């Protein structure tokens, strides 16, 4: 495919990318420095700087050394177990990613379906859109116990509703919203002249949908997907906690924080695991973005 000069991998872009990486590394380094610096300051001054008490406790119980946190990853989870914390966290992250991924897939399908319906029929937009928005104002904390109660209560197509389904359901419930709203905006984005052009070809609505509306919606879907991904992950972690599902990061965060007084670094390992999961997912979305927008003008994300 021929590409005009200066669009693909120009030296300016490469330098920009390198600088972005450098900034990211520097930001992490600065955060680590602040953490350890605060601790060191607290220990050196016994918690009082120029007559002011430090706002947060700096002892190892509240703020373990970062080296201890990192070291904790390679140590066994509990006394008497062989599995290291690192492996447990990775397993938990993988499990959560699976539940979130399933929820996201359902959320995307439902979101796109609703968007197509709302674009096609104005009545549907009038009738559905308020409820789509309303769905997100229901407090998540109120919804979770309700959904948690579904397990074992009813069947879906012959399958009994299981606990993990509740977790994925909550993830999909949060993920469908940005997709539905973004896709609707994108599907409605072609100009009147574009639609007239398709009408002049006597194109059926389905052809207009697939050849014009969906491709037009792609730049709107990228940021929607980013939001949906994040919502699905956070939703899964919190849902695991409130549903009481074992195996995922949410459960680990809960368990480890119960051991906070005896094993402070452990709490942070699970949190770092969640952050890592977020980073991986953000990377996946970036790759998706690069791929779907490869043939578009720069700066085409709406």
């Amino acid at each position, binding site marked *: 495919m021929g590409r005009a000069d200066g669009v693909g991998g120009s030296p300016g872009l490469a330098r920009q990318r390198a600088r972005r990486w450098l900034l990211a590394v520097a930001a992490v380094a600065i955060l680590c420095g602040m953490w350890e610096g605060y601790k060191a300051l607290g220990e050196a001054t016994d918690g009082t700087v120029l007559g002011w008490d430090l706002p947060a406790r700096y002892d190892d119980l509240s703020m373990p050394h970062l080296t201890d946190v990192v070291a904790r990853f390679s140590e066994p989870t509990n006394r008497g177990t062989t599995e290291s914390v690192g492996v447990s966290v990775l397993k938990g992250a993988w499990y959560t990613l699976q539940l979130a991924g399933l929820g996201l897939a359902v959320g995307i399908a439902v979101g796109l379906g609703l968007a197509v319906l709302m674009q096609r029929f104005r009545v549907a937009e009038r009738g559905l859109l308020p409820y789509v928005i309303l769905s997100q104002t229901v407090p998540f904390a109120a919804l979770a116990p309700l959904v948690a109660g579904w397990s074992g209560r009813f069947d879906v197509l012959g399958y009994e509703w299981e606990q993990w389904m509740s977790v994925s359901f909550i993830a999909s419930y949060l993920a469908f919203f940005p997709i539905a709203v973004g896709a609707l905006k994108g599907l409605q984005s072609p100009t009147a002249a*574009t639609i*007239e052009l398709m*009408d002049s*070809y*006597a194109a059926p609505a389905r052809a207009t949908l697939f050849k014009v509306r969906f491709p037009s919606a792609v730049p709107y879907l990228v940021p929607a997907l980013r939001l949906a991904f994040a919502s699905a992950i956070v939703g899964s972690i919190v849902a695991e906690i409130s549903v009481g599902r074992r195996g995922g990061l949410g459960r680990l965060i809960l368990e480890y924080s119960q051991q906070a007084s005896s094993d402070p670094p452990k709490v942070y390992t699970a949190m770092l695991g969640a952050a890592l999961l977020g980073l991986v997912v953000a990377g996946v979305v970036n790759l998706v973005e690069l791929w779907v927008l490869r043939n*578009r003008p720069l700066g085409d994300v709406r």
Partner: protein
Amino acid sequence: MNTPEPATVRAVAVSKIFNPHKANQVDALIDVDLTVEPGELVSLIGPSGCGKSTLLRLIANLIEPTSGDLTVNGKSARQARLDQDYGMAFQQAGLFEWRTVARNIELPLELRKWSKADRRARASEMLELVKLGEFAHHHPWELSGGMQQRVAIARALSFRPRMLLMDEPFGALDEMTREHMQAELLRICSETGTTVVFVTHSIPEAVYLSNRVVVMSPRPGRIVRVVDVPLGRRDDDTRESAEFFKKITEVREALRGIEGGGDPRSADVERLRSAGGDFR
């Protein structure tokens, strides 16, 4: 071949009223009679709100007339649209940014379920016609405005319709590019024998391009005069000939005869159109 070819467009007493019997009723077109013969290039000119775009959309069957009789190629406008008897080009080239230039031209052929090989062949043929052969695999956003408009024309002609409907296609181009595009359009039409109905705001453009210039007036939209332009074959000298200027003056005087603008209602039709009122 004993029966004469039917007129490409025949409009008899065609009217279009937006929002009839309502407070915001707009008489976009009243009792319009117009015949366009095969191979002719006819321009529609007039101030905003004179219904020239509405008339073009009626011919294209993008909207239905309120009353009157309208045939295209001897059949109903609707049937002509379904048979894809015409191609269309707008002021914005309206190319799809995610498709290459060649794949943009292939779009109408895809909709007609042409095979890939046939589409490829026709697209490169059309690109040669508009002299953009080497840009087949570029994306539209890598092309200048004039080049994009040429791609739009190639797309409109890709399935070899007998008629081209153009709504201010060169309106967004600079003067030099515009004159070049006008010459290109005439060359393409003489090579392909395409009939053209052309909406424009520009008097010199209308006179240079057309066999006939249809002058329209607003409130209500109607045809006030049809100016014949028997200038023969056009070239660069045409633009400087006395005949050319005489015709420009004739069209300008026909337009002056119309009560001038300044009425806020003159933009009604445009506004209605953008608001999607009474629109398919």
